[in-house]
């Protein structure tokens, strides 16, 4: 376990020393503030617009940070040959993967926290309203979803060596699930028999990342998700994270590291 945390620590250090994430944060902050300025006076619903745009940016930024950081990890270790002195230590391949996973996940979590604090300050200062339990749920569910995304990217980075292609493929897959994953059952409904079963199977097998999108509750202040549902969602995310990590390990454990 100590090994895993040590590995994770390096990933986190890398993230805040490489400074990619500052760029995204500043961009999000600027766009949100700019959106808040435009038409500020002639639209009473402006706070909600700004919230929506800020939330969207947070989602995109978090996904970008998660996928880009993760997809780079293992290829960069191999490219720069830092993996050799590392794996020459008593570190198993499994620990290596878990360390990378937790590092990326925690790093993304930190970024997410920074984004949400910014969001809470911007909206809270406008509305004088701090529904912190809702924020907590939103951030938790989003973070749980990102765990699946990170595990998926890690798995992708084992299969394809180029981080850019891994990033692109993962981003398309995740965006596809987020946008259309929830509609696959509707598609299935309109198909004839063999196709229908296939579509339904896919529908129940893909990780439904879109379930974790509870932006509406934050923006329209709908109140909290049932806590039991939160626990179930967390279990669901954990199961998929485990699945992808297992696949990653299966692909990596026998991999020859000779360049």
């Amino acid at each position: 376990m100590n090994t895993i945390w040590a590995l994770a620590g390096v990933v986190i250090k890398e993230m805040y020393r490489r400074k990619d994430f500052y760029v995204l944060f500043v961009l999000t902050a600027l766009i949100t503030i700019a959106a808040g300025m435009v038409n500020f006076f002639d639209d009473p619903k402006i706070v909600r617009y700004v919230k929506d745009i800020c939330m969207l940016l947070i989602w995109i930024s978090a996904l970008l940070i998660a996928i880009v950081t993760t997809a780079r990890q293992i290829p960069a270790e191999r490219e720069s040959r830092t993996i050799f002195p590392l794996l020459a230590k008593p570190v198993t391949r499994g620990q290596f993967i878990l360390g990378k996973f937790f590092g990326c996940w925690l790093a993304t979590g930190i970024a997410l926290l920074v984004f949400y604090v910014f969001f809470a300050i911007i909206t809270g200062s406008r509305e004088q309203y701090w529904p912190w339990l809702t924020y907590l749920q939103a951030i938790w569910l989003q973070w749980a979803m990102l765990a699946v995304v990170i595990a998926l990217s890690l798995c992708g980075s084992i299969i394809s060596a180029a981080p850019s292609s891994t990033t692109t493929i993962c981003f398309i897959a995740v965006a596809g699930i987020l946008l259309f994953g929830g509609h696959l059952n509707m598609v299935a409904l309109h198909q004839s028999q063999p196709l229908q079963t296939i579509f339904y199977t896919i529908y129940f097998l893909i990780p439904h990342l879109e379930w974790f999108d509870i932006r509406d509750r934050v923006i329209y202040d709908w109140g909290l998700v049932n806590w039991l549902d939160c626990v179930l969602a967390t279990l669901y995310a954990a199961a998929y994270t485990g699945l992808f990590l297992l696949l990653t390990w299966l692909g990596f454990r026998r991999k020859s590291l000779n360049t």
Partner: protein
Amino acid sequence: MKASPYLVLAFVLMVCFTLATGIEPRASTWSNRTKSNNVFSMLFGDGRRLFANQFFTMADVYFHSGYYPSIFDLREEGTKEIVAATHGQAENEEQEKKEDFLGKPKDWIDRFGRHFHITEHTHLEHGNEREILPWLRLAADMDPQKIETYTVGSFFMRMHLNQPREAEAFLREGLRNNPNSYEILFELGQLYDENDHDTGRARDVWQLALHKWSKDPEAVKDNKLFFEEITVHLAQLEREAGNWQQAINWFQAAQKVSPDPNALQQRIDEIKKKMAAQPSPTNSQPH
């Protein structure tokens, strides 16, 4: 004892599947966001309305062939000229001085700068109006609740581009998104009346519009002009159809809110003269 990793994999996959089927019905209550069919609303939620205003403005910019006061120049935000054009109020544009259009030059730099911009107050015409349609289409996608988008779009399609069917479809889309919009119903009625010359449908739609208007307390309070406009339209419709008594009834209704009841009285008198000369067959009351 060590389980084969593939067995574990199969087990985890099963757990995922079970959880998915179990959670699926619950998940639908967590959020509405991803159930939407509109990609824009899924991404931006209410934030897209911010863009809707922008696109609507863009349509207006195109209408003016490019030059347009920037947001910093906008003196009084309100009806865009593109909207005014649909109400036939822009016919006096000849009198609009370009200085009025952009406002007086604020300083010498501004005055100097105007040598380089299109400062001519121009409007699109001869079918070039179609350039504004993509913007309106986007505006409608971004903010389906923005009524003006539909009425303006329909107006240009049926009046300038000779596409009444497309206009009708666009209005129907607007109605689906805003079932209580009396403005869209009014525009639809105009389409049936002016383009299709279908008196029956126009009458039905207008009466429905009037009904919706009366059900909307805010509109009743703030938009009395609409009541006049629609009753006058109904009156004219009945007059064309030869239903003189109904025409008179509608004109009388309009008189109650009109700022100029005498003008309406004149028209009533004209009809009464005609009635005296040639009595109308029908004599029923408007509802």
